[in-house]
């Protein structure tokens, strides 16, 4: 899986553009993520952060520019100078290596927590059940949900559901993890337990991109912070620079609003 030369980033985004009808949501995004980097994307609502994340694993098709994951163009293939949607097999293979955690957890409600975690490994990766269950139990222990393995999602708190969703994504052994506002729909007292799990992942060296409004998480965990506004990257840098000495007026205004 890690056959790339060390110089090749895990993810490279070049001039990424996306619009819904006449509304330009992403207007030329450039950045790249090296292995073991933790990139935190911040910015006001409607700035295109979530859309950006969904373009990276092609849950949202982008129109312009390139997303290159592990040296491969995401979602499209060039054919006779034209771009056509890549075969489903290619897109599926790419998604297997990119884990995603959603704002609303999106656990499968008709399955127990354990079944949620082993679903991908068994159905998609064709792992033997015993092996998948062993790995899932280890992951559930890691996110502190061993006692909930046979419970249904609806009986869990939001924080527990989100930790289970992280375990489900990790069970695919992803090379990159995407977090789409993972704590935004949680009660305040449950935010901490999810952030702890994400911090532990960061310490283990997981490559991750996280869209969040948790500035403390950005400050503590990010190796780089990207500030987005109106579909563009306004400012980018290590957290200590972006938070304490932002270069752009818009960054300053945003931080003044969110940090009390």
């Amino acid at each position, binding site marked *: 899986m890690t056959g790339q030369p060390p110089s090749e980033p895990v993810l490279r985004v070049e001039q990424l553009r996306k619009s819904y009808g006449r509304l330009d949501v992403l207007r030329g995004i450039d950045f790249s993520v090296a292995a073991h980097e933790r990139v935190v994307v911040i910015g006001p609502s409607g700035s295109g952060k979530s859309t950006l994340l*969904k373009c990276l*694993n092609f*849950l949202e098709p982008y129109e312009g520019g390139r997303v290159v994951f592990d040296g491969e163009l995401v979602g499209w293939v060039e054919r006779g100078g034209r771009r056509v949607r890549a075969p*489903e097999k290619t897109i*599926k*293979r790419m*998604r*297997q290596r*990119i*884990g*995603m955690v*959603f704002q*609303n957890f*999106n*656990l*499968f*409600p*008709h399955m127990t927590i354990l079944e949620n975690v082993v*679903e*991908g490994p068994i*159905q*998609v*990766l064709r792992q033997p059940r015993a092996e998948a269950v062993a790995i899932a139990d280890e992951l559930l222990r890691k996110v502190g949900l061993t006692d909930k393995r046979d419970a*249904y999602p*609806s009986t869990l708190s939001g924080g527990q559901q989100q930790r289970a*969703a992280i375990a*489900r*994504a990790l069970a*695919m052994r992803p090379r990159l993890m995407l977090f789409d506002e993972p704590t935004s729909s949680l009660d305040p007292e449950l935010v901490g337990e999810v952030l702890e799990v994400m911090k532990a992942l960061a310490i283990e060296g997981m490559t991750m991109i996280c869209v969040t409004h948790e500035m403390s998480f950005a400050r503590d965990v990010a190796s780089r912070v990207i500030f987005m506004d109106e579909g563009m990257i306004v400012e980018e840098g290590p957290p200590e620079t972006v938070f304490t000495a932002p270069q752009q007026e818009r960054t300053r205004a945003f931080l003044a609003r969110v940090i009390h």
Partner: protein
Amino acid sequence: MSYQWHFGVIGDYWFVFLRGGLATIWITLGSAALALVLGLPLGLLRGSQRRLLRLPATAYIEFVRGTPALVQIVWIYYCLPLLTGLRLDPVTTIVLAIGLHAAAFVAEIFRAGVNAVDRGQLMAAYSIGMGHLQALRRIILPQAVRKMIPPFINEFASLIKLTTLGSVIAVYELLHAANGLIATVYRPLEIYTFLALAFFVVIYPIICLSQWAERYFARRI
């Protein structure tokens, strides 16, 4: 009113009701099977992204829902043979007509069930590398089916009631059997009252079952 009720007539002619009841059961089961077999793919087509697949299915569903079942039955019985030369016996006609009719409703229930599943479920399924069909089979349909079961049971109850329309084309189902008996023994009050009660005794538990299923699945998801 000093009418003398003689419900004994029901017992005397029980075999008439047995024969009519069996016909009603067969028509119900036959048309229910046809409605499911046609309705499920119809519902899938109706929800398709492709216009070429979606439009014919939509046209069929809307036309069937916009015309009375009785008119559909007499049309298939009297007009279809004139147009095509294909003459169907009354029982085949009624099974076909009610099946085609109910298929449109089954299709709508099916589509509504799939639509009722949160879009985030599809996203989550894709994000772990599932393809569209696998996501439908493993994630969307198992949840949709739970939402579809209560309305399906309700549809089955209306289908039983629809079978009585067969009497207009002389299908020997319960109502037609009752009419025949009335012509012989002239006891319409007893016979129609019994008929209404008999339908109620069968249909009411089905409606209760549907309501119970709705509460049961609401708790589980």
